[in-house]
């Protein structure tokens, strides 16, 4: 059998859902090709009134906080050293790695001159939030790639780099958190320049703080979301007990966010706030549905042990976050009597393709690499050790065939 045949046979064995994802990714790739051949103007609904559309609002501004799971759980598990949460770290890193790689792709697709992307590395402008974010995203994608090498080395039994990576785990967690707090907040700084453009419901000088706070509770929620779904659909162990710790942390951050948000709205915003019913509705939906309700659910005693309640609350948080980022980067920017922007077919296909690629690669990676079978209890993290064969690696080899 040739390699191609092996691959085709392998794919034939996949679940229908995965095959659908492959089709979506394919369509996305095709749509991106069309975008490059015909140009942004012809293939998107962007124009001089809407220089930014779906790709910036979702693929960048929303996707970055959605990928925040890796750094938040890294801090909880490695820095606060809550060892039992270790099994949650690796899936989160995979999600983060995929998320950030796809953010880079989304960003490149949106640039008018993608072949010049490297210019940010050469021509610095320290006053530009976009410069700051692109540097951070590049740095963090590198960190995530290194962290992702972990299961890869395990899979192929490369012991020397593996030993090195294990020792770097804690420094990486710290680095990830510092870089993340910078660019997650700087995404909010983007919109500080939109004085008199972004509606007062969202425009306030604390926007960067609100962005990092919401990234933290979103990162924790996405871990719950992911672990629960993975348990249900990929037949992985039930982690409800571990997630319990997270459900105790999240309401604090939701509460803090709420306080800062209300304070900013009351004292730091200027001008009318509730003058446009459409925007007010969006705002209330985001705040009540995405912050207050999940905060209440997460604080319930029952949620500690009830995985479907956890899932529901986490889903609400995620939906609220997505709405918030769209409110800030798109809806809140629409001026009175301005035409309304809708993404074009090509724009939508590309974004769908990116989401599908995320799900697809996540499932595939966990199929072929030791993601959930990671047993950190057996490993000595605290003290640097000699370069020798690592216990548990044979096990890693075995699980590959599963």
């Amino acid at each position, binding site marked *: 059998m040739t390699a191609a045949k092996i691959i085709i046979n392998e794919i034939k064995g996949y679940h229908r859902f995965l095959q659908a994802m492959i089709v979506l990714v394919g369509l996305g790739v095709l749509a991106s090709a069309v975008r490059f051949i015909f140009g942004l103007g012809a293939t998107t609904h962007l124009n001089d009134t809407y220089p930014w559309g779906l790709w910036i609002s979702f693929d960048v501004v929303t996707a970055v906080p959605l990928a925040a799971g890796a750094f938040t759980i890294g801090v909880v598990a490695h*820095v606060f050293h809550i060892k039992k949460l270790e099994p949650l770290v690796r899936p989160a890193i995979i999600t983060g790695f995929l998320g950030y790689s796809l953010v880079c792709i989304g960003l490149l697709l949106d640039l008018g001159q993608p072949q010049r992307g490297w210019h940010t590395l050469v021509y610095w*402008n320290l*006053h530009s939030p976009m*410069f700051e974010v692109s540097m951070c995203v590049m740095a963090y994608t590198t960190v995530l790639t290194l962290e992702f090498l972990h299961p890869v080395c395990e899979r192929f039994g490369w012991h020397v780099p593996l030993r090195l990576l294990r020792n770097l785990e804690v420094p990486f967690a710290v680095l990830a958190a510092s870089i993340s707090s*910078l660019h997650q907040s700087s995404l909010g700084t983007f919109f500080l320049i939109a004085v008199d453009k972004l509606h007062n419901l969202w425009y306030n000088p604390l926007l960067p703080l609100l962005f990092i706070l919401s990234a933290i509770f979103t990162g924790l929620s996405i871990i719950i979301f992911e672990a629960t779904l993975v348990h249900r659909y990929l037949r992985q162990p039930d982690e409800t007990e571990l997630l319990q710790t997270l459900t105790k942390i999240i309401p604090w951050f939701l509460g803090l966010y709420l306080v800062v948000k209300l304070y900013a709205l009351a004292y730091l915003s200027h001008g009318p706030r509730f003058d446009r019913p459409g925007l007010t509705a969006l705002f209330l939906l985001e705040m009540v549905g995405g912050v207050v309700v999940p905060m209440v659910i997460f604080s319930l005693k029952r949620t500690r042990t009830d995985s479907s309640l956890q899932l529901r609350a986490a889903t609400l948080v995620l939906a609220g976050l997505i709405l918030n980022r769209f409110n800030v980067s798109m809806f809140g920017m629409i001026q009175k009597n301005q035409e309304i922007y809708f993404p074009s077919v090509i724009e939508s296909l590309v974004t769908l393709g990116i989401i599908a690629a995320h799900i697809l690669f996540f499932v595939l990676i966990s199929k072929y690499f030791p993601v959930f079978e990671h047993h950190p209890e057996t490993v000595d993290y605290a003290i640097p050790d000699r370069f020798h064969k690592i216990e548990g690696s044979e096990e890693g080899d075995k699980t590959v065939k599963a």
Partner: protein
Amino acid sequence: MNAGGSYENTKAFLIDTTKCTGCRGCQVACKQWNQLEGEKTHFFSGEGYQNPPQMSEYTFTRVKFKDYKKNGQNEFAFYKEMCMHCNEPACASVCPVGALKKTAEGPVVYEADKCIGCRFCMMACPFGVPKYEWSKAFPLVRKCTGCYSRIKNGLHPACATACPTAITYGTRAEMIKEAENRIKNRPQRYYPKIYGQHEAGGTGVLYLTHQPLDELGFKPVTSRPLPSYTWQALRMVPGIFLTVGGSLSALSWFTHRKERIKREEEMLGKGRSPEAEAHEDREERP
């Protein structure tokens, strides 16, 4: 950027809309000088009589027509729309690669070779000036250049040269003085405010009008320079990086320390293995 300095000696346009006849000589001169393609347009495609309906990749400046009623009579007001050449331009501050720059002479210029096409400048500009080459596969930004190449050679901008009545060109201090004089000398002719004197922290284009500014469609813009809004957050970046990094490092050192000590004690209890000794050697080094 002219770090916090004064912009008195940068060059500025004084556009007296009460003297503008709507001839659109500036529009044509700008197209000619910058070799901009013509646009196929038709009347009433935009607001009122103005044509083309808005600035675009082909149109760096355009005369806006505003009809209004005065003593029951239909009247026109005209004003020339162009890049304001802000003292502290928002477009330049947000550009990740610094493709836009405020020159010492005044114009805010664009280096096309640097631009990566992120369109942040278009988002940031409070006057909606930078436009994009939507017609191209690899588009760049286009906007009024302030005729930088002409100024460098001692000429005045093409539009200011072509204008028979309304545009005066000179240093910003002179232009403000001139505008103030006109307002003082003919108070019934002028609305007592110079648009651009304080808008967005001061701009290189100043307008005099007869009617109130908002009636003419001038956007109210904050008088604080826009880059300061983002800088107040961005300047904290190094501090945040060090604080978060430092405190988390310290924290992890403590949380891991307990474990390390425990393990060492265990080992002592068990008697030393050669491996444990190797660890300690390493640990004892300062």
